[in-house]
């Protein structure tokens, strides 16, 4: 008789080691994989941004140009010309989010599958929104903005202001983390099904044959599509919220 299939275990990021300063800094899977993502993106950017020529661009250059101009057009449409200096941040956010999620395909734990990463993204947007609101309306104008259009809506305004980053963070985290959960559930289910089908064969029966191939198709949706979509959503929301807080001053 075969041993029972271990029930799926979904855990948070593993802590590799702890730096014993400032009350202990946990170096988790999320942080290490985040460094990996930064390294990969830097390397890709290094190869993409080299040898650009104004005439006879190579295929690589055409792709890079298309990518950059698409992003900058999107930025200009959603944030306006006065916010073009956000281009590197939005690019970094998009690339970091997408590659972090895609890292889940390799079997490593996706940094965006950790709530702290997405909270990091959302907090930056939150701080930028408040910063630009204070900068453009003045401190008291910013405070006054919460009691508009009527005074008794103030609590609702504050809640909605705080709800924005929370919803952004949990949306992104939930999509990627649910991918991790569903993937492990699928592996569990496929192991059970293949045991039912071929479990009676002496040696081969112990190999969960259905686990080969099938998860790949599902991961096209759960990992590739979701990765792109969530990276797009978080970049878009950041652009819209921050752009709204720092609209072009009408002259």
């Amino acid at each position, binding site marked *: 008789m075969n041993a029972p299939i271990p029930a799926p275990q*979904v*855990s*948070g*990021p*593993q*802590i590799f080691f702890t730096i014993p300063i400032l009350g202990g*800094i*946990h170096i*988790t899977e*999320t*942080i290490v994989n*985040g*460094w990996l*993502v*930064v390294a990969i*993106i*830097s390397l890709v*950017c*290094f190869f*993409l*941004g*080299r040898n*650009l*020529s*104004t*005439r006879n661009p190579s295929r690589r250059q055409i792709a*890079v*140009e298309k990518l*950059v*101009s698409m992003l*900058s057009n999107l930025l200009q449409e959603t944030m306006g010309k006065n916010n073009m200096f956000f*281009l*590197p*941040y939005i*690019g*970094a*956010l998009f*690339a*970091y989010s997408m590659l972090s999620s895609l890292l889940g395909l390799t079997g490593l734990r996706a*940094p965006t599958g*950790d*709530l*702290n*990463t997405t*909270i*990091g*993204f959302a*907090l*930056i947007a939150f701080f930028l929104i408040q910063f630009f609101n204070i900068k453009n309306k003045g401190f008291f104008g910013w405070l006054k903005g919460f009691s508009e259009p009527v005074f008794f809506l103030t609590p609702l305004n504050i809640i909605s202001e705080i709800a924005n980053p929370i919803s952004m963070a949990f949306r992104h985290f939930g999509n990627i*983390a649910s991918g991790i959960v569903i993937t492990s559930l699928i592996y569990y289910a496929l192991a059970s099904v293949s045991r039912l089908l071929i479990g009676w064969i002496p040696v081969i029966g112990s190999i969960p044959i259905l686990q080969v191939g099938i998860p790949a198709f599902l991961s096209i949706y759960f990992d590739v599509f979701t990765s792109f979509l969530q990276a797009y959503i978080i970049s878009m929301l950041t652009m819209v919220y921050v752009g709204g807080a720092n609209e072009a001053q009408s002259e």
Partner: protein
Amino acid sequence: MEFVSIDTWTIIFTWINLIILMFVMKKLLFKPVMKMLAERENEVGSMYEKAESAQQNAEKLEGEYTQKLSEAKEEAARIMKDATDAANKKGEQIVFEAQQKASASILKAQKEIEREKLNAVSEIKKDIASIAVSVAEKVIEKDINEKDYERLVEEFIESSGEEK
């Protein structure tokens, strides 16, 4: 760690990662690409400018050449006309001169003829006189007076003059 947990350091590391990535992407990707795109735009703009100025130049030159060509045609026509006029004039003059010469020579010839005629007449007169003398001598022999003789000579001359 728990599946859903909050760890401040992870958030801070995420920020650090994002900031590093922002600068790396700006330096390695966005700046060079944007610079290249701006350069290309400039290049294209200057090319358009050059092309436009070249076209304007060409149009100007074309206008100039057309004008010059028409001027040259006019000039040629004028020269032709002048030459024709001059030739006509000259021809007329030549004809006129020839006519004059011809009439002069005709006049000269007529004068010559007149003179010759006069000569001939006086010669004939002499001849006739001598003939008349000899005739008269013969007539005298037949007794003809002076008066008859003179009349006879006059008659003779007149008749011979008419004959001529």
